[in-house]
């Protein structure tokens, strides 16, 4: 069993309405120090040892991300981390 994190974000040249709305909210609520927000998707996967990096790449490209407008990163996580703050 391994844990894998896949982060999917909209390509930088493509509009990210979510990020835009959040940035506006932050400046309204007094956080002028934030100059850019992009919202994407975060996936936590649990995979067994049969799943190669190639498989993960394919999974991300085929299912988790939309290659037309998004880019992604695949990260294998050290077993113990839980990926959760508290």
């Amino acid at each position: 069993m391994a844990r894998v994190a896949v982060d999917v974000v909209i390509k930088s040249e493509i509009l990210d309405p979510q990020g835009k709305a959040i940035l506006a909210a932050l400046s309204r609520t007094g956080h002028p120090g934030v100059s850019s927000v992009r919202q994407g998707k975060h996936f936590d996967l649990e995979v067994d040892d049969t799943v190669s990096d190639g498989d993960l790449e394919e999974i991300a490209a085929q299912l988790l991300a939309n290659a037309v407008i998004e880019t992604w990163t695949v990260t294998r996580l050290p077993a113990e981390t839980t990926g959760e703050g508290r």
Partner: protein
Amino acid sequence: MTPRVGVITFPGTLDDVDAARAVRYADAVPVPLWHADADLKGVEAVVVPGGFSYGDYLRAGAIAAQAPVMRSVIEAAHGGLPVLGICNGFQVLCEAGLLPGALLRNAGLKFVCRDQWLKAENTSSAWTSRYEPGAEILIPLKNAEGRYVAADSVLDELEGEGRVLFRYIGSAGDDAPPNPNGSLHDIAGICSADGRIAGLMPHPEHAVDPLTGPTDDGLGFFLSIVDFLEGAKVR
């Protein structure tokens, strides 16, 4: 003196015209409230209508909950001001901490618009006194994030104190499951302990005239609050 009921408009609010109309149909005066204006204009109750406030891109209602007008509403609500949140409004009230729990993506992952049967559970709240206990009403449901979730302890509390206002019991004219979004305990709406703050996922304001809605079953919410405000009803 006819009651004055505030109707909030955030950028992205859609059903404010409908909510205002429903208030009028109940012979009260709708008072427009603007998201950026903290002034509640002395209204005696507030409706937070449906829509996609600020786009609802982050989490439904999350950004609206922080708007200047909501800060005033939260304060006034703690002081007993009756508030009804419909759909996005319900989401806003949860995000604002005025009601417990949260509304997540529908179990079916799709926006659902259909005529929904509901069963009245609590008919003593400020917003539901006009309904008979156990009454079944048919009003529109339309949302993508209507799945009510809360910790078991919260659910027990809601059930124990009879704070579930309405439950989903089925849809008109199809074989789809009665619970349209996977809400826990089939919850369609809840209220605060004092029954003054209410949240409902389906849309009573879209069912005030059979010409444009499936029924006029939704009018009860607005008549109830008018009764409440006029003190006509001894609670």
